[in-house]
């Protein structure tokens, strides 16, 4: 008994041995769901392609070479920069940025509206925001396709109202892709901003008004800096998956409005694929996202250290 008591007086010694054991679930999760799959793709991107899909275990830079350089039809011309894939990357980035912008434009007022409701109304609105997630993304995207097609309800409704004289062509345009991305990821913008606004103390706005600030100044100098972490989280949560999305561009954008996601998907689908190339594109996409996020984290760190 005395031994037990003396042992437990020091907490650190009691739990020190348990440390690695308690870490185990996290390590298993990270290892199995992050390190293994990403590591596998990283390795695949440096292997040689097998013609019917799959890889040959032989080191090769061909995948990266294919992405950046054009060596002619037979692969023996002097290399020139290959713009096709870079353009797709650029278009994807642009599409994702536009979708993020519109999500922010609509998401911020929505989040503000919900956060400022009182009592049970708040929960009802939050609940409504999450309802679309009860339906599979594929099905939602297909319904969107039916909604906006030339003979779809949107056009028919506008026609019957006399607003337009012939159907607006939306499907298979950039706009359709942006709309699809916006629709898919809007809640990811609303929820983090909502969480920030929820913590906002409205006496800050009163204090600003008391100190002669206009409504606009109050918004830009007091409210936005306060909810900035929520806005940034929302932007990341919308931008990153939009960048790699393939359902919306595939179903709503048609063949002309290719995005990275579809490009990668194609490399792994059927017999025409090129696994190392798909893996290489994934790695390049991942690098870009990491660079952007690291830059942001650094900036954030600098600001906090200030």
């Amino acid at each position, binding site marked *: 008994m005395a031994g037990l008591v003396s042992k437990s007086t020091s907490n650190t010694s009691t739990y020190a041995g348990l440390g690695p054991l308690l870490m185990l679930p996290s390590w298993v999760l990270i290892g199995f769901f992050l390190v293994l799959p990403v590591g596998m793709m990283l390795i695949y991107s440096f292997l040689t392609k097998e013609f019917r899909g799959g890889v040959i275990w032989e080191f090769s830079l061909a995948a990266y070479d294919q992405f950046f350089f054009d060596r002619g039809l037979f692969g023996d011309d002097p290399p020139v920069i290959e713009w096709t894939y870079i353009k797709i990357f650029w278009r994807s980035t642009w599409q994702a940025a536009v979708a993020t912008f519109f999500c922010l434009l609509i998401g911020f007022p929505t989040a503000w509206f919900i956060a400022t409701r009182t009592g049970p109304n708040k929960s009802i609105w939050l609940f409504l925001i999450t309802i679309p997630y009860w339906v599979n993304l594929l099905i939602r995207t297909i319904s969107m396709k039916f909604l906006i097609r030339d003979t779809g309800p949107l056009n028919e409704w506008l026609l019957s109202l006399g607003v337009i004289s012939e159907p607006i062509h939306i499907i298979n345009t950039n706009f359709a892709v942006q709309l699809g991305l916006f629709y898919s990821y809007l809640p990811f913008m609303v929820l983090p901003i909502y969480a920030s606004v929820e913590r906002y103390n409205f006496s800050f706005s009163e*204090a600003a008004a008391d*100190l002669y*600030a206009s409504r606009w*100044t109050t918004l830009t100098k007091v409210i936005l800096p306060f909810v900035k972490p929520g806005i940034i989280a929302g932007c990341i949560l919308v931008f990153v998956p939009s960048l790699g999305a393939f359902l919306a561009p595939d179903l709503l954008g048609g063949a002309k409005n290719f995005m990275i996601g579809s490009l990668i998907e194609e490399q792994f689908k059927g017999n025409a694929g090129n696994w190392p190339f798909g893996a290489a594109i994934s790695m390049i996409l991942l690098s870009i996202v990491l660079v952007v996020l690291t830059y942001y984290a650094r900036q954030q760190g600098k600001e906090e250290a200030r």
Partner: protein
Amino acid sequence: MTEIAINIQNMTKRYGSFVALKNVSLSIKDNEFFTLLGPSGCGKTTLLRTIAGFENISEGAIKLYGEDIAELPPNKRPVNTVFQQYALFPHMDVTTNVMFGLLQLGQDRATASARVTEVLDLVQLTQFANRLPSQLSGGQQQRVALARALAPKPKVLLLDEPLSALDLKLRQAVRQELQQIQQETGITFVFVTHDQEEALTMSDRIAVIADGVVQQVGSARDIYEAPLNKFVADFIGETNLIDVVVTDVSQGNATCILPGGEKFTCPAAAGAVAGSGHLSVRPERVTLTKPGKGLLQGITTRQVYLGTDMHVDVRLDDGEIITVRVQNSEGMIIPETGAIAGLEFETGAARLLVD
């Protein structure tokens, strides 16, 4: 003649069918430390917020140095507020917080900077100029809030229970500091509190508010010594309320019959009328006498020793309890519990109230 800083005329504030302020009329003088005192929910903060412009008034008028400000938004009113929870902008350091109002007024950075240094010096926070609010103690935050509100040199400074979040010791120190700052700056202070001690020690004048109605306005002494009605007498300090039958009120004096049947004449509050009424006598102004002597007779039911003095409860025949406060001294004579005691009032100590 002193100038009137704030003049509120027949102001009413309604929230739907709830009336928060009923027909309030008040004049706050220039350079005055004016306190709105009342229990929570009495409407004192609402009154302050109507002056700041955060609440619209339903009826009446508010004038600031003669100018009607009832329709002006808060950012157009030359008044500043010290908020109850300070409402310091969390992402700005002390300097930026204090400078905020100055820059909004269109001052250039150099002028604003000089003013910030000046007010931070006034509240003794110069060495904390670069801290964020979260890095300050409650007392320091309170002083930043004060500095921020003082910086634009408002015509009137509104303070919404600014001391309630501080601990007792700090509160007492800050009270003195606030009074000193008010005198140094010459700015009119309108101070909201539910703490009567705070109100009594700091204010030039006090408005006692209950149920959205101004009950009485006067100096601390007026309100304590000459309360108008039962609410004021009871809310400010401790008092004994004695049921009496008033036979006559004339020229500020009332003749009434005490519970024991004794006839008694005392000053009457303006507006008191004949009929059944209440006398108010402060415990420290009641004295114990020998049984059979004095105005009232009762049985001693309780003695509480408080160090500096002693509280003795005496129960009258009709069940009313009168508390007597006896100062602790060598010759103090305290009747035993259960003993009969006589009670006497000091001259002018008892007053007939408006019921």
